[in-house]
């Protein structure tokens, strides 16, 4: 699943992203299943709000954390997220 520069990403309406107090973790919930997320995955998923493409996600996250070179990690995670159906893409 390769990522197009024009793809805009949005969190899937069929899944739910939720903070779990007892676990002190964000989780994705879906029919009869649950995935626990680490901090960086959550940050990327929160950027998938239906307004950003890859470049904007990379830019906004690098700015937020005052760093560079996140692109490869972000691509890798977006591919996993697409494969699992956690996010969807729309092309402008």
């Amino acid at each position, binding site marked *: 699943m390769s990522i197009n520069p024009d793809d805009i990403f949005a969190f899937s309406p069929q899944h739910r992203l939720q903070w779990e107090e007892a676990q002190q973790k964000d989780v994705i919930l879906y029919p009869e299943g*649950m995935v626990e997320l680490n901090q960086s995955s959550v940050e990327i998923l929160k950027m998938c709000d239906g307004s950003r493409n890859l470049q904007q996600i990379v830019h906004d996250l690098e700015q937020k954390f005052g760093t560079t070179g996140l692109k490869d990690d972000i691509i890798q995670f977006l591919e996993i997220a697409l494969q699992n159906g956690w996010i969807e893409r729309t092309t402008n």
Partner: protein
Amino acid sequence: MAGSNAPQISPPRWLLAELTYSCPLQCPYCSNPIDYSQYPEELDTGEWQRVLSQARKMGAVQLGFSGGEPLTRKDLPELVSHASDLGYYSNLITSGYGLNEEKIVQLQQAGLDHIQVSIQASTQELNDHLAGTESYQHKKKVAHLVKKHGYPMVLCVVIHRENIHQMQQILEMAIELEADYLELANTQYYGWAHLNRDLLLPTREQFLEAEAIAQRYKKRLAGKMKIYYVVPDYYEDRPKACMNGWGTTFLTIAPDGTALPCHSARSLPGLDCPNVRDYSIAEIWNESRAFNFFRGTEWMKEPCRSCDEKRKDFGGCRCQAYLLTGDMYNADPVCSKSPQHQVIEEAIAAARRSAEQTEAPLIFRNSRKSRELSGGK
């Protein structure tokens, strides 16, 4: 239980609320206990709400409303709405019987996250025969309605010898119904299914053929439909990691309020499963004898005790060990290292003989039969 040897207790993640044993269907593989008719006392609305609140507080987040048929509980919308306020992800596990558009909308407004509809087979004739009720057309309609209202659509088909030859048609039916998830659950032989095992267990050839078809579709449909394929453990070398480990993840509450570490734990002797009418969920989960019974690995006998896989499968299923070997501390006999493994091979051979002979009748799950089989009470 505070001794230094006591295993670390992780909080429950899944709560399975078996709201009722009543059900209009009579599936001969039903996992309810054979003597379910002996537990007619159901928890009331307030008691269920308390259970939901206490379990959520401990960390349970996935919630299954099941049964029996949960739709026979009039207070289902009320319970769903309570669950939604608490932040559960709530799953309704239903035969679809008695579900109509009005109820689907009502439950959605109450905050239900998903509906899993079970279908018995891919043809009307076989479905209605297996369910012991005319229900096929209605189930298909329900599946369409679930989809129409934007729920993730999960179809569940329990697989056994009577329908395993329909594997391909079942998969095609799921495509036609636009299922987002398809659960192909090979029958687990407890309760009613164990009673009917000779008639339900597929032969090895049937199983291998069906599995190959399912895997082919799984690849083809990747990204469109998620297919969960539950393997029949009789044809495996190693047992399943039952319940992800005793008292680590799953909490089942039976209709009468009995708290169970696994849904058939009631059948185990001397476990003394606690009731939510007498104890809080925290007391039950952390302190009760039943939930601590098979926690960790200290309870194990050989060959599990010195086995390097004991943290992977936890010795398999306790109920299966008890049901098939008469000793709940034994290794699950599905394991090829189990000294009792021949009981599985005998069961497979018996199923083959029965497959080659003329049919004996299936025993359908209903209250009359249940009373008969629990001593005519």
